[in-house]
């Protein structure tokens, strides 16, 4: 059991995170303050939720790139609708409407994929363009900075506050609770429900899953429902945090999120991936981003470093496989070698 944990992907990322933190901390001690930690968490939260949205799709064996556009249309659409009606309340209504729009958009992906037996990637390529286009043309083309009364203070809605000489007053943001709640739910859903197991089964071997009696279309629809719902949610959180609603929210960031999910141990061909791994994957990407700022390495390097780590990570299983292949099938060779 202990050996399995040591060999797991999650453990490896954790080691990298710790090692990287030690290096950065020794160069710039500011990294090791509570305030810096809280700030890291706040910056990570939205991306963790987005990664959660994508994770079931990846386990199912697909790559979706449209979730960012779904986040944009849901959050921006909700905002423009509510602002237009003079809404001054809190975020709850934003969440309800935003998640509903997101869920419907996600279901549309699922419907096209299951009805016409298309590849997830192809469909999402189309719907991504479609939703950004729709938002810009029908809803609005500019960022909107008007905030309802109830949303204004959201960016500083802290559970715990700290004052830091560099960062000023900061704290553990309330969105951390969402991440924990969603994370626990998603973990339970993937590990303990038959639908969750079905997602892994389909990702592992689609034909056998069908023969075993998993209802592929139903499970696919549920996966895309979750993706849309969480994307809509993440869109609202991000916009409220940054105090502006943007029709091109998250544009171009879909592959960064995918990279985090893969870093977290999910397999691009499906069947593998965990909630813990995904959280660690996002945190690692965020630490790298921060590390480069704190150690004053030019920001352009960030993507490069993430890329290199990604290569290493995708190479590890391949190297293990190669080693196994190189060992060959010749049995009893240990003794044979000893005899020789």
């Amino acid at each position, binding site marked *: 059991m202990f050996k*399995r944990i040591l060999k797991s992907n999650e453990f490896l990322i954790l080691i990298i995170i710790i090692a990287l933190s030690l290096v950065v901390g020794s160069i710039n001690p500011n990294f090791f303050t509570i305030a810096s930690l809280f700030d890291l968490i706040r910056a990570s939260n939205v991306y963790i939720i987005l990664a959660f949205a994508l994770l079931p799709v990846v386990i199912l064996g697909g790559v979706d790139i449209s979730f960012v556009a779904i986040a944009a249309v849901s959050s921006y659409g909700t905002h423009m609708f509510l602002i237009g009606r003079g809404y001054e309340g809190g975020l709850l209504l934003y969440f309800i409407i935003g998640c509903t729009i997101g869920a419907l958009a996600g279901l549309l992906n699922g419907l096209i994929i299951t009805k016409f037996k298309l590849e997830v990637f192809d469909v999402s390529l189309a719907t991504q363009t479609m939703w950004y286009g729709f938002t810009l043309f029908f809803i609005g083309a500019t960022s909107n900075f008007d905030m309802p009364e109830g949303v204004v203070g959201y960016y500083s809605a802290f559970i715990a506050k700290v004052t830091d000489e560099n960062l000023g007053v900061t704290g553990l943001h309330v969105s951390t609770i969402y991440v924990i709640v969603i994370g626990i739910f998603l973990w339970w859903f993937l*590990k*303990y*429900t*038959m639908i969750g*197991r079905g997602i*892994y*089964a389909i*990702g*592992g*071997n689609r034909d*056998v*899953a069908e*023969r*075993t*009696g*998993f209802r592929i279309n139903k499970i696919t629809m549920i996966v895309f429902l979750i993706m849309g719902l969480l994307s809509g949610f993440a869109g609202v959180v991000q916009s409220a945090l940054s105090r502006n609603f943007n029709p091109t929210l998250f544009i171009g960031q879909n592959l960064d999120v995918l990279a985090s999910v893969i870093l977290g141990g999910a*397999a691009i061909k499906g*069947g*593998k991936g965990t909630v813990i791994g995904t959280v660690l994957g996002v945190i690692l990407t965020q630490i790298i981003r921060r590390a480069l700022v704190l150690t004053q390495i030019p920001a352009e390097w960030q993507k490069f470093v993430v890329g290199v780590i990604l290569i290493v990570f995708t190479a590890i299983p391949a190297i293990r496989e190669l080693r196994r292949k*190189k*060992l*060959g*099938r*010749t*049995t*009893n*060779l240990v*003794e*044979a*070698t000893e005899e*020789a």
Partner: protein
Amino acid sequence: MEEELLRVEGILKRFGGVTALDDVSFSIGKGESVTLVGENGSGKSTMIKIISGIYTPDQGEIIINGKHFSKMTPIQSIQEGVQVIYQDFSLFPNLTVAENIALNDLIISGAKTVNWREVRDFAREGLDKINVDIPLNVNVGELSTADRQLIAVSKAILAEAKLIIMDEPTTALTRNEVKALFKVIKDLNSQGISTIFVSHKLSEVREIGERTIILRNGKKITDQDAKELDIATIEYQMTGRHIDTSSIKYSKPKEEVLFKVENLNLSHGFFDVSFELHRNEVLGITGLLGSGRTELALSLFGQKPAESGTIILENKEIKINSIFDATSNRIGFVPEDRIKEGLFLPQTITNNIAAKIIDTLRNKLGLLDQKKKVRLGDEWIDRLDIKTPNGQLPASSLSGGNQQRLVLAKWLAFDPKILILNGPTVGVDVGSKAAIHELIRQLAADGMGIILMSDDIPELMHTCNRILLMRRGRIVNEFLRESTDEEDLNKELIADDDNGTSKRQVEHV
């Protein structure tokens, strides 16, 4: 016979104009072990599909547990206790052993959530029933084929199987694994579970089955105690023709050494391998799965280059560090897994034949000369007697035996000096086998040097001039065909493997 479990009565099944099964009847007793044998197209897969409810017979009846069915659905078949283990085992490589075993039951029971403790207990119970010990929390993808098969068996048992049908279960197993599987099957039989074992390997037919049923062209030819049948009789019953081995014309090797290997090594593969191949000779290399035989074949073809040693072709030392090196020295290789490694299945038969020599089919403009290509394709389809109405059909439309001929055609069109064949007739029926053997001997007589890797003893005896035996990565013995008989060679082949029976369990800790 004791109590009867299953009886099929006068089963007739037609597909279009083809009669797949013609008035076939037999019965299987409780706890009985039956082997079902037949060439490709003999109707044995159709029979299995009828018993498992996938096909409905046009005439006839299936009687299971005393219930009569003229039509049976797959669900009814499962409810009556019929479980089929297909060659892919229907497992999920990314899920643990425990989950793989328990999933079926979870789905059937309509469970919404998973209780992992119950899953493990359930799986443990399943493995205990067949007395095997496989770690429950390992992913199935990390296990050997043999272990995966045992998992499939325990899944079947847990589904309350009364009859387990296994389709070619020993294809990828080592000798020890086959033994372990047979022990499990015998165990099941003693618990009153019947088994039908579909096999091509004639020596196993006698080993496992109490009774052998032979189908040919949709008709039942034989139904009798396995011990009363010898291999020659089974072959005859399957093909309807005597395969006469006494009149085989073997090629006569010359003194001239065509190909020579000295002290070849590959760690974890083979050690200190040296041999000579004469002109016009067919050299057999045998050994069990895991003896280093396959690794040696892959080394000679540059896929897993040897780490040290010398290779001499026509008195010139050559280096084989890649497949490109091998082919530029005109060494050809017919792989074991023809579907994965040998053919482009969706491509046309002609394209497959031309694939290796596409460079020579250029016209003046340097473009592909289609007419030349078609001519080449037709020539080889004709020469190797590949049964197809048209060379423009995809390779996937061919039967197993014809696909194997197509792989051969692809390499023969390339005109190699040395042709390495690795298990050239695995999964090919007896009739096509004899034709391929004939072809191999003919090629050698025409001057091609042939190295044949195989663990099929009759195959080696029917084609080779000389046979080398590998064991644990070394060549340990050499046999001249004239002075060896099949039984001796078989004994030698499986001799020392018996020491290490329990090793398999240790490997995956």
